[in-house]
């Protein structure tokens, strides 16, 4: 009788064909980082569209100041009385900060990995749109990151870069008698400073570049292979970028031109 495998411990020692020795993939794996970027990026796109809808209230006829301040008040007291006070606002802010940290971390890690694997010789590149926007994602991203800090200091926190008329105490009485914070006057005062208004406009163009490539990347990172879906995303990428840049950049321009006043 031939020995069974239990009686032949030496069988374990027989060399078998092995996979070639290679290094394990870097952690966290590239594909996971890409999915994180796409997920957090999608959150930011939704946020930008809602943010834009709120901003555009400055164009409403009959008391835009009231509409804008009412909306700002609604944001701060969202989901009341289910949750008390500004609970929702702070939970939302926490999610945004977490998403931002993940997005920046993944972006930098991917950029470093890409940079390491680039070869030494110069390349001639096709001057496609995605070449311009895709290669500058890190730089547009860093500009947007500094803008987020500036924007929060300017219009939310009111430190360092705020207009001298900035106040979190100034109030505005709505037509129904509710007394709310006057966010509208802070906005107008900030944009009455020409360099700040121009800075906002320039950053909006940078955001449009970032969005146009980012939205196209989302469909790839989520593995969308259907032709029509990909074409829709390619179109949406430019459409959303245009909507965001035109909608937002028009406000500082309108203030500078004197079309929006207190």
């Amino acid at each position, binding site marked *: 009788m031939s020995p069974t495998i239990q009686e032949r411990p030496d069988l374990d020692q027989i060399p078998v064909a092995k996979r070639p020795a290679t290094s394990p993939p870097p952690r966290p794996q590239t594909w996971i980082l890409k999915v994180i970027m796409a997920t957090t990026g999608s959150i930011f796109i939704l946020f930008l569209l809602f943010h834009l809808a709120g901003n555009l209230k400055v164009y409403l006829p009959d008391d835009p100041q009231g509409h804008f301040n009412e909306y700002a008040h609604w944001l701060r007291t969202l989901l009341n009385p289910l949750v008390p006070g500004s609970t929702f606002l702070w939970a939302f802010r926490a999610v945004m900060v977490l998403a931002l940290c993940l997005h920046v971390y993944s972006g930098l890690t991917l950029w470093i990995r*890409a940079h390491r694997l680039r070869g030494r010789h110069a390349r001639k590149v096709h001057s496609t749109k995605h070449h311009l926007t895709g290669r500058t994602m890190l730089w547009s991203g860093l500009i947007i990151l500094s803008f987020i800090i500036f924007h929060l200091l300017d219009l939310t926190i009111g430190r360092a870069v705020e207009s001298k008329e900035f106040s979190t105490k100034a109030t505005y009485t709505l037509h129904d008698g509710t007394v709310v914070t006057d966010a509208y006057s802070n906005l107008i005062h900030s944009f009455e400073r020409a360099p700040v208004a121009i800075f906002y406009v320039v950053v909006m163009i940078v955001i449009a570049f970032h969005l146009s490539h980012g939205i196209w990347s989302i469909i*790839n990172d989520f593995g969308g292979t259907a032709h029509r879906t990909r074409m829709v995303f390619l179109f949406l990428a430019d459409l959303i970028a245009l909507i965001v840049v035109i909608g937002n950049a028009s406000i500082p321009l309108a203030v500078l031109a004197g079309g929006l006043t207190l």
Partner: protein
Amino acid sequence: MRLILEVWRQDGPDAEGSFETHEITDATPEMSLLELLDRLNHQLVENDLDPVAFESDCREGICGTCGLDVNGNPHGPEDNVPACGQHVRSFSDGQTVRFTPFRAKSFPVLRDLIVDRTGLDRIIQAGGTISVDAGTAPDADTLLVTHDDAERALDFAACIGCGACVSACPNGAAYLFTGAKLAHLALIPHGKEERARRARSVIAQMQSEFGPCSQIGECALACPAEIPLVAIAVVNRERLRAGFKKGKPN
């Protein structure tokens, strides 16, 4: 035709390389870029100099052996054509043509214009085997594949593994190559049993040697087999799908 050739010369993987300039006075417009290098080598040997090392085999665009950058373009100035199918007529008389090895950290130079592309082989090896019936030949039509799926799978199977996508990529990514392989095997019943396991190991291997994709699209413009850009999305689709399979092989 007179052409000035600037050719990258490097003795070995660890040697410092440099450009060498030569003049070809009798180039003809119908010469392929490889024939231009042949002509240069002829001239070098006649003058007792070392010929330029470069790879080529079939010279009809089906093998994927030739691979070099010409004026910074993978394979040459034309899009979607291998070096053997590109001709001197793309250049004007007296122009300087610069030959460099494929550009990617994952493709170390072995000598002159020859790079080590075994990184791509390791991606294929990581894919492992597929389950097919062995033994006697199966009856015809036991394994049905629709015409459209067969055509699509063949479109992706057209990849000749030349590595131009990696050289074209600013990030040194091999997404187009890997995606083409995964897409072709995901479309046909052969290898269906190992679909998730293959995605996990192939993509892990790809990531360990090649860069991340930035969806710029240079790869699809360079690819001599015209693999469509959708292949890069197939990589993440297959990996996400495998993730939902919780370690199951299919």
